[in-house]
């Protein structure tokens, strides 16, 4: 990981290119700035004097093919809402009545002008169709979700409740558009509406995909160039057996200590390590960075938590990308850790002096499962309700200490106002802190225990070794590939989010556990919850921990290759355990989640 000091001409070119890049980004229109939210405290501003020809104002709105959500809403509004609420959502003003047509003055004729619904209706004499734009209007609604709920329930006046779900969303989107509160590039729906305020002008960000693509291309080219450059050096300098006298010895820095100077080539191959340990480090770093970024916007209070997640996802520039990266890295980390665990067992590398490190690794796995669960719960939306209730109730049924443990974890006798704060602290501080300590210890022990497990020199069939520079080069390429996959997945598949959790009793919809705990959910169907939900996972963990202590180890000469004979029983035990996990997960996926 060495960056050569730049000599003047190269430095000059770098500065030129860098300044070109800076000007490129300065020229990009900053669409993040919100239109200035002029908010007057009481009366509405005067409506603009209509200058348009009535025929134009009554025209059917133009719609593209396929229509956008706002256009669909505009069409619905034109057909249903406009008669009373006006073409500019100005409400039933005298001016609007004259525009709409002399004999369609609903107050005089009691009919509905030129757009009479088949069953007809009378405009109520005691109510005024209110304006929906201008300061002070729609003051009772905080966000688009509340506005849509109201429209769906009470509108249209003559047939309330007749709007379909997507029609209600479309009409809401159109009203927000008129009010200048509808952000671009956002589809209004249960997963976004709570974050979109009715009162203020919307902050919009443009399409982020070109910027992400640009970044991906540049970083790929840069990394490939860097590795190629390193390759040149490795070939020229490392192939020369005589050390270069003129070259001063490089002072070792922090990065040099992460790896031994040389590594046996046979054990540094991807097909031996699977790259799982390195990938886990990479994913953890991504999780750390994206997690810190999410903290800038996440609000750990029950009323705001889900809304703030929606804000990050759909309103903050690159917030959706940040959250998706965090989500997908977290899911991938669970799988990568299991792959790493299996690799260590199936190559017999966990034994002897590495036993402690094996236990540390298991502790990290447990921490990651808890981190994934607490992170999942922090969404605090309708999707996590049952997982939260079931997951925490498992603590309650532990005999003796159950209730106090529950109190400790959840912060009350039921999930309530302090629970989000609790889970936030568990997730962001306690578990993350523990995970980092274990992780640093794990990496330190790996080097102290002699690096990657290798057979003794006399039984090795090759003496080829690679330098740590070559190892770093491979690691960087692996990170690049993993990073690209993550970036593509995060751009194409958004992390789940639903509408904020409400106190109202929701119907028991999909009560599936998060996928990494589906095996526990399947076990819970067997009977006693303490036995299957608490004891069984703990016993499983203890069994995994005892593996190096109760089963025979691989012989020294067998180390450094797959499936040694010496620890075959341990391999079979671990494989059957993992297969059981997978089987239970599959069973749970394809069976009904209903009890």
């Amino acid at each position, binding site marked *: 990981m060495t*960056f*050569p000091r*730049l*000599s003047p*001409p*190269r430095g000059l*070119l*770098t500065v030129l*290119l*860098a300044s070109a*890049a*800076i000007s490129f*980004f300065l020229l*990009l229109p*900053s669409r*993040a*700035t*919100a239109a*200035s*939210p*002029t*908010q*007057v*405290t*009481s*009366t509405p501003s*005067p409506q603009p004097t209509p200058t348009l020809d009535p025929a134009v104002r009554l025209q059917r709105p133009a719609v593209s093919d396929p229509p956008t959500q706002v256009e669909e809403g505009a069409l619905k509004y034109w057909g249903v809402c406009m008669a009373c609420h006006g073409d500019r959502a100005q409400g039933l003003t005298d001016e609007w009545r004259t525009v709409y047509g002399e004999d369609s003055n609903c107050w005089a004729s009691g009919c509905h002008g030129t757009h009479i619904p088949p069953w007809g209706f009378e405009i109520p004499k005691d109510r005024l169709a209110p304006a929906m734009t201008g300061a002070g209007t729609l003051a009772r609604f905080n966000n688009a979700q509340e506005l849509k709920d109201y429209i769906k329930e009470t509108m249209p006046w003559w047939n309330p409740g007749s709007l379909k779900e997507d029609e209600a969303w479309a009409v809401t989107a159109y009203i927000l558009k008129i009010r200048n509160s509808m952000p671009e590039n956002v589809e209004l729906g249960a997963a976004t509406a709570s974050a979109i*305020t009715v*009162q*203020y*002008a919307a*902050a919009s*960000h443009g399409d982020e995909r070109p*910027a992400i693509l*640009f*970044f991906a291309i*540049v*970083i790929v*080219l*840069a990394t490939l*160039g*860097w590795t*190629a*450059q390193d390759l*040149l050096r490795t070939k020229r300098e490392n192939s020369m057996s005589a050390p270069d006298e003129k070259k001063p010895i490089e002072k070792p820095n922090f990065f040099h200590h992460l790896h031994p100077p040389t590594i046996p080539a046979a054990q540094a191959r991807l097909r031996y390590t699977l790259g799982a340990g390195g990938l886990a480090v990479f994913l953890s770093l991504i999780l750390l960075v994206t997690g810190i*970024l999410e903290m*800038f*916007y996440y609000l750990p209070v029950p009323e705001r938590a889900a809304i703030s997640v929606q*804000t990050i996802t759909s*309103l*903050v*520039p*690159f*917030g959706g990308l*940040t959250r998706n990266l965090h989500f997908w890295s977290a899911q991938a980390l669970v799988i990568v850790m299991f792959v790493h665990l299996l690799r260590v067992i199936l190559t017999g590398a966990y034994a002897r002096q590495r036993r402690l490190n094996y236990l540390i690794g298991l502790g990290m796995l447990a921490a990651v499962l808890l981190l994934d669960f607490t992170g999942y719960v922090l969404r605090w939306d309708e999707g996590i309700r049952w997982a939260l209730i079931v997951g925490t109730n498992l603590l309650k049924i532990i005999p003796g200490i159950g209730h106090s443990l529950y109190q400790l974890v959840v912060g009350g006798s039921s999930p309530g106002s302090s629970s989000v704060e609790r889970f936030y602290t568990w997730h962001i501080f306690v578990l993350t802190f523990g995970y980092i300590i274990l992780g640093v210890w794990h990496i330190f022990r790996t080097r102290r225990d002699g690096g990657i497990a290798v057979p003794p020199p006399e039984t090795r069939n090759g003496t080829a070794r690679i330098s740590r520079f070559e190892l770093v080069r491979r690691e960087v390429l692996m990170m690049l590939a993993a990073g690209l996959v993550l970036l593509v997945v995060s751009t194409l598949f958004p992390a789940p989010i639903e509408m904020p959790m409400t106190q109202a009793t929701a119907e028991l919809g999909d009560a599936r556990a998060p996928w990494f705990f589906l095996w526990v959910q399947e076990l819970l169907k067997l009977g006693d919850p303490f036995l299957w939900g608490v004891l069984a996972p703990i016993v499983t963990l203890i069994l995994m921990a005892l593996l190096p202590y109760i089963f025979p180890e691989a012989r020294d000469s067998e180390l450094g290759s797959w499936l040694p004979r010496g620890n075959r029983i341990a391999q079979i035990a671990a494989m059957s355990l993992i297969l059981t996990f997978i089987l239970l997960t599959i069973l749970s996926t394809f069976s009904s989640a209903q009890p």
Partner: protein
Amino acid sequence: MINFSRRDFLKTITNSLFAIAGITGVSGLIRFLSYQFDAAPPTEFDIGPAVNYPPGSRTVLANIPAVIINDEAGLRAVSLVCTHLGCTIGEDLQGFACPCHGSRFDPNGRMVKGPAAKSLEKLRIEETPEGTLRVYTAQAGAT
């Protein structure tokens, strides 16, 4: 002529690409962090019809905060935000006093005693077509 080998060229391109990637990332980060979570506080306040402020009256409106003065000099609004460091100023018999650092202003808002260096800001006040008065707290330069 400067000796510029193929390796140097590759290094330069690579380093430049890293620089561009870094700048791209930092620009994205800045845009991410500069999202405004809440709307800015209001800068226009409707304070009711002019008859509520008869000649000779001084009305403190705590929500702006400002004092509406109607005297021989006419109807005007004076901000109650201290020009020193932004505390809200209280009114007493001698004029205005800032509770934070002791700045004093006379009844017309002129600076009497520091540490404030400027007099209290005069706010734009207008009558809307509906007949209510509207006070603008935005800086004079911004309107």
